[in-house]
């Protein structure tokens, strides 16, 4: 490899299409692309690999641009980085983004032999490259004289027109194949809304919609359970993921220094007192609910001075209106 690099260094002087600044960008992009390619095969998470591959592809696009292939550079960015890699990411999201490779070797010595084989392959290609009479590069000034795209189109629609036509058949076949492979035949009839409703009532668990969080509660946060009309907190109103979490206290600095349970208890007692008051007064049920949200708001600033800010005062006003 080094012999070949020396040899190519010797010919570098007689390159026909010398561009200023090319060595700097070549080495920059070469280092970036090789580092990203190595990162791609060594990171365990598939998403990181995909991002590394994006870095390699973008570096290669820049190299194409340097090498007098602006059309291919843009096709590389649009088709490869834009479409193919996004397709990879979509499938990764479908298949499961958390899937990481296990580090256990299923074939003994596989990595060692892969590394040895890679070094041998690299030596083989390097030797072939070093012995090849590469000569100097002719440059694309003449070929790109009327524009790279026009030059490519002249070739594509004359010399390679048959391959171009075959490509269309390939693309149609690929699109059909993807549709056939990704299509799943439905083996049971699609359940109608009536069927879904019937099965919901048959199971008997919870025929209606689940209560929303924060109903009749002082806190409209999604992790505060709803209070049922009799004042009991409903676990069903919470997302099971949230209900399973245990760090409630850190999440609620607004609970007047108490825990979530204390806040629920306060809500429950507030709802109970207002319900009792309303029953005593014989008020209509709508007024009960409005003052039910408002009454503890008056208590809150007494227990915690900093807590009764916007909502507390707002509900206090509403309570005043309801009182009138």
């Amino acid at each position, binding site marked *: 490899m080094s012999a070949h690099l020396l040899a190519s260094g010797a010919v570098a002087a007689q390159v026909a299409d010398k561009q200023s600044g090319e060595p700097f960008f070549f080495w920059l992009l070469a280092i970036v692309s090789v580092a990203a390619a190595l990162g791609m095969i060594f990171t365990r998470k598939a998403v990181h690999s*995909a991002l590394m591959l994006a870095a390699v592809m973008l570096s290669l696009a820049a190299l194409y641009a340097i090498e*007098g292939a602006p059309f291919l550079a843009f096709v590389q960015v649009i088709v490869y980085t834009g479409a193919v890699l996004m397709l*990879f990411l979509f499938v990764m999201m479908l298949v499961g983004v958390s899937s990481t490779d296990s580090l256990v070797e*299923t074939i003994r010595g596989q990595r060692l032999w892969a590394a040895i084989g890679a070094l041998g392959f690299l030596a083989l290609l390097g030797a072939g490259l070093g012995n090849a009479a590469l000569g100097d590069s*002719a*440059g694309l000034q003449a070929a790109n004289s009327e524009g790279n795209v026009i030059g490519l189109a002249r070739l594509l629609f004359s010399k390679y027109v048959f391959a171009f036509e075959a490509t269309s058949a390939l*693309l149609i076949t690929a699109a059909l194949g993807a549709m056939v492979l990704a299509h799943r035949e439905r083996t049971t009839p699609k359940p109608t809304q009536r069927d879904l409703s019937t099965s919901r009532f048959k199971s008997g668990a919870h025929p209606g919609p689940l209560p929303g969080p924060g109903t009749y509660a002082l806190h409209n946060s999604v992790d505060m359970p709803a209070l049922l009309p009799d004042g009991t907190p409903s676990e069903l109103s919470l997302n099971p993921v949230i209900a399973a979490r245990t760090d409630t206290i850190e999440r609620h600095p607004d609970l007047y220094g108490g825990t979530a349970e204390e806040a629920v208890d306060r809500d429950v007692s507030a709802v109970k007192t207002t319900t009792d008051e309303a029953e005593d007064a014989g008020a209509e049920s709508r007024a009960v609910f409005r003052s039910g949200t408002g009454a503890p708001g008056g208590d809150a600033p007494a227990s915690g001075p900093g807590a009764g800010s916007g909502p507390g005062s707002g509900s206090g006003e509403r309570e005043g209106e309801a009182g009138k």
Partner: protein
Amino acid sequence: MSPGHYLALSTILFTIGAVGVLVRRNAIVVFMCVELMLNATNLAFVTFARMHGNLDGQIIAFFVMVVAAAEVVVGLAIIMTIFRTRRSSSVDDANLLKY
């Protein structure tokens, strides 16, 4: 820069892709390594086009890109189908044709 530098870079990237195909287990990552190898050959084609002073190499690189796009579509559909039936995208788990 002489074409040798670009060809050396192409060789290195191709080898890295081949190592990835050999050592990785996740089918999607293996597939991405194949894409890396295709990209490396494209770089070689573009370099050859510049070396010889005509655009045939760029045309071949263009066709490689088209075929790679079609291959990605079908390959990812196959990976998704295997994942649906076996709930895994590891290349070790699809072993029905073994022996």
